[in-house]
């Protein structure tokens, strides 16, 4: 991922900060990120805040990362299937790769993504971490 301007990131706060997707008014399909055209052909949606709970479908450890994530490296990234349906790719926080397994329950947690140098903007967003019931 290349570095994005603070303004571009700012426009995506609803999804990055609050897992805001949308839901088709016709067939109730939930999308994250938001879509403008549903698989059913409908174009009418309402905003829908996803619950932030789900399970790990697959995961990997990133050992060589883009420079902006170097402070956190190594870190884990996974595909999470949310209880609401959508699947998303996200960092898995507070986790060593050896303690993760497919099917682990995870929950969203608000974290720092990157800070641009010592004077740039700090980027925040949602990561996922193992829910307590999945620990051990």
């Amino acid at each position, binding site marked *: 991922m290349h570095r994005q301007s603070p303004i571009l990131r700012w426009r995506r*706060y609803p999804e990055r*900060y*609050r897992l*805001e997707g949308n839901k088709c008014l016709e067939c109730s399909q939930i999308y994250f990120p938001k879509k403008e055209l549903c698989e059913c052909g409908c174009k009418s949606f309402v905003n829908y*805040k996803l619950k932030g709970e789900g399970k790990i479908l697959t995961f990997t450890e990133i050992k060589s990362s883009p420079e902006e994530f170097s*402070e*956190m490296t190594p870190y884990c990234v996974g595909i999470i299937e949310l209880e609401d349906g959508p699947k998303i790719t996200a960092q898995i*926080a*507070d986790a060593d790769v050896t303690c993760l397994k497919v099917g682990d329950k995870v929950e969203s*947690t*608000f*974290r*720092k*993504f990157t800070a641009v140098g010592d004077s740039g903007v*700090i980027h*925040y967003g949602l*990561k996922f*971490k193992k829910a*307590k019931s999945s*620990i051990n």
Partner: protein
Amino acid sequence: MIKKLNIGITGFGCYIPRFRIRTDDIAVANNQNVELIKGALLINEKTVPNKDEDAITISVEASKTALLRAGVSPKMLTAIYMGSESHPYAVKSSSAIIGEVLGVGENFMAADTEFACKAGTAALQMISGMVEGELINYGLAIGADTSQGSPGDALEYSAAAGGAALIIGKNKSEICANILYTLSRTSDTPDFWRRNKQQYPSHMGRFTGEEAYFKHVISTTEAMLNETGFKILDFDHVVLHQPNGKFPLKAAKALGASREQLKYGIVVHDIGNTYSGSSLLGLVNVLENAQPGQKILLTSYGSGSGSDCFIIETTENILEKQKIGKRLINYLSDKQYVNYNQYRQMVKMIH
């Protein structure tokens, strides 16, 4: 005559990071006597923030639980005041970021407060005054910190990370703890400070005790008792600022409080000093364990120096709120230890 308030807590929540370091490991790394240190501080272990955590991320997680328990839409909050001495930005509001993440919208008043370890209770007083004065219906007050001490300094054993959030309202059917009174004492005392752009604070060692912490905590609590006519033993729970395990015990003893009154209010032993989060974490733990109709005395302390004192009384609604959301005890049992080297790596980013 002190004014009696008609407001209360409708939601409360806390957050501490998952990682911990044992006091033993810090002492060994610094070639210091483990038993001596533990005896002096009464801290077994402390929380360590991960590299991607700061006072804002801690505040967000604590506030989410507070909102869940308050049972109101984030859009109903019309003020957010966040107190910390580790605001991630020197200039850019932490409270504004927290409001955006919670989905409060844009119709809210906001500011960040700073008064060493009492920035959170100062925020609580400000929100309380605004609700009492009917400027707002609901406000969010937060105290959170990712504090740290330089390697080898006494502070390294206690400086920890965590925070707590409280939603204040005036609707009796939603209030789980009435805030009855608050007052403060403040004096210009040079016990502990951190200049701009300095990574670590400076402090006057032993002077931070008698002339600073004890003087303010005791005199402010006594002033409150004098003003309201309550006796210390009238309270079911006493919560005092807890920079280590020993100070609140000693202050409580001087005030005539029993160990039983401190049962839920002292949480520093397994968390460390969370600065602006410290006394509010104790309060949240009390609220998570209290019975209806119990009286709570809370006195914070912030270096520089001052104390804020509150008298709070739980209502019937407390039992329902206790069934919702993550409790401090859940966070305490969800932990992973790091060694000293990992710990230094994790905290080197702070500030």
